[in-house]
């Protein structure tokens, strides 16, 4: 760890005069599992394709293991890709698919046999060498695509939404397998997904992208618990975004007015007196009750509805200004609330996250 494996310096990619990727700086360490996360069209796949060499950056530099590669053809780069659609060669059997990269590098027949067998074993499809890709299930094809990439011992493995086409259960299973595989092989993984849960589950670090720019880079926990921007807070998991005017600023704290009530928020560079501020509070950090809780922030509103969603119960409370806050409560500690009740929504101030605008 610590060695820079992939570096992007001021990388921009234009398609038809729009910046799909806009001035990105990113250092990816050797051996880490890094996820590029964002909605479709945010530039994550384009970024991946530039690292693979399928697209050339309009400006900026890409370094691979310290060497500048942005003009290098894809077949000369020590990276391999697992494609979204698997892209297995339909006219070759599984063995030849996996052996393809080694054959291109003129590796000896015996070594090819040994390495292909090992790679197929690693993805638990040792017996399937003679099958055609078409004869395999989606999950099996996915594993072959992974075997075909890792058999070349790449420095970096690029994965473009590789689990997108699988059903939920298989996807969960493959997420863990991929994570274990990455730890076993100690290869740098760059993983592209729009699925935030997948990103949180698998990654060492997550890069959240939006509209061609990086919104935040951090550990999964930081991304979830300390989102920096409104976009990140909104995109990762569910949250309550509360907007209000800053009425006072002290040393460590500040006061914000929301729906006629004062909220104490942490002081931060992102707020200024008499200006709008945004905070995010996760629904599971909130409680709802008929009387104010002690030692916490309390907002008074009226009960709207409760929705049972299995793992938790969602409670929706309407604020005097008409905005709604959502609370996730575990089933054991829910007070009976009815439509006529005044409800206090409360949370610990340390769970308040101040967002950039």
């Amino acid at each position, binding site marked *: 760890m610590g060695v820079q494996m992939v570096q992007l310096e001021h990388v921009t990619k234009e398609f038809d005069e729009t910046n799909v990727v806009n001035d990105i700086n990113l250092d990816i360490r050797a051996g880490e599992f890094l996820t590029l996360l964002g909605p479709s069209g945010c530039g994550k796949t384009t970024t991946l394709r530039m690292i*693979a*060499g*399928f697209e050339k950056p309009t400006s900026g530099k890409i370094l691979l293991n310290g060497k500048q590669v942005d003009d290098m*053809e*894809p*077949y000369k780069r020590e*990276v*391999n*890709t697992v*494609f979204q*659609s698997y*892209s*297995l*060669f*339909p*006219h070759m059997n599984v063995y030849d698919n996996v052996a*393809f*990269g080694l054959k*291109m*590098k003129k590796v000896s027949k015996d070594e090819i046999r040994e390495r292909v067998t090992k790679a197929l074993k690693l993805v638990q499809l040792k017996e399937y060498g003679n099958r055609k890709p078409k004869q395999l299930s989606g999950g099996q094809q996915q594993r072959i695509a992974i075997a*075909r*990439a890792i058999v*070349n011992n790449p420095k970096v493995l690029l994965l473009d939404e590789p689990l997108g086409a699988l059903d939920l259960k298989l996807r969960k299973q493959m997420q863990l397998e991929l994570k274990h595989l990455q730890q076993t092989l100690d290869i740098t993984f760059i993983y592209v997904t729009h699925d935030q849960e997948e990103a949180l589950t698998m990654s060492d670090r997550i890069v959240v992208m939006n509209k061609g720019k990086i919104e935040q880079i951090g550990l999964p926990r930081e991304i979830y618990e300390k989102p920096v921007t409104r976009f990140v807070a909104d995109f990762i998991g569910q949250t309550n975004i509360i907007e209000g005017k800053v009425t006072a600023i002290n040393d460590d704290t500040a006061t914000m007015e929301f729906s006629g009530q004062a909220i104490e928020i942490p002081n931060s560079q992102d707020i200024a007196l008499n200006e709008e501020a945004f905070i995010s509070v996760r629904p599971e950090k909130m409680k709802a009750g008929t009387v104010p809780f002690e030692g916490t922030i309390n907002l008074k509103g009226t009960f709207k509805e409760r929705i049972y969603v299995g793992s938790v119960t969602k409670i929706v409370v309407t604020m005097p200004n008409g905005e709604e806050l959502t609370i996730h409560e575990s089933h054991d500690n829910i007070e009976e609330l009815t439509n006529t009740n005044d409800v206090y929504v409360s949370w610990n101030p340390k769970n308040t996250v101040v967002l950039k605008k």
Partner: protein
Amino acid sequence: MMRPRTKKILFSFSLLVFLFFYIPILFVIIFSFNDSKLGTVWTGFTLEWYGSIFKNSQLINATMNSIYLAVITTIISTILGTLAALALHRYTFIGKKSVEFLFYIPVVIPDIVVAVALLAIYGLLNMSLGLNTAVPGHVAITISYVMLVVLARLSSFDNSLEEAAKDLGANEWQTFWKVTFPLIFPGVLAGALLAFTISLDEFVISFFTLGPGDNTLPVLVYSMVRLGVSPEVNVLSTIIIAIMFIVVFVVGLRMRKGGDVK
């Protein structure tokens, strides 16, 4: 479910179509064994014409010419047509739509126009006609078919396969021969066969652009039937039918066995 009456009508109709197609061919085959020199009356069974046809040097010569032209045409058209299809599939350039349109024109333009145009050019260039002067015309009318067939095949080609190949270390050349070509090969083969049969069958352009002494099979047969349908023409037709039948049968059998290559 189809109603029984509809079924009956459809069946009779199909039968009629088949009879319409195959009865003339059946007659040709039967009369190739006819003893009479005049093609119209049955006088008795003979294999005499099957012997004499192989001694007819004119006929053999014309057959060789036809095959020669078809092979040359197929090679040129298949290579150029495939390259054109690849270019049109892969690249976007200014005027692409017009270029594509230009490739459709030879399919609908009458052969006679191509023939006359070529003749005019040859006249202008003061070229003497021979066997090879028919090649440009044959290529011109077959190249579009090859291109269209290969283009159709390419439309179902997943471009990420080429990226996958390059990602795995194959350069452009290796990518083409290891991945792209094997996958479009059925289209290329179909285009080549189409070009071959069109060239073999081609009459108008050959008639106009061949030299005086050079005949292809259709041109020779045309000159032969002007003096009445001789039994030798029937024999020739029967042999061609037999060969085509065997070819189609074998290809069909192989395709069923191998399944679709894709």
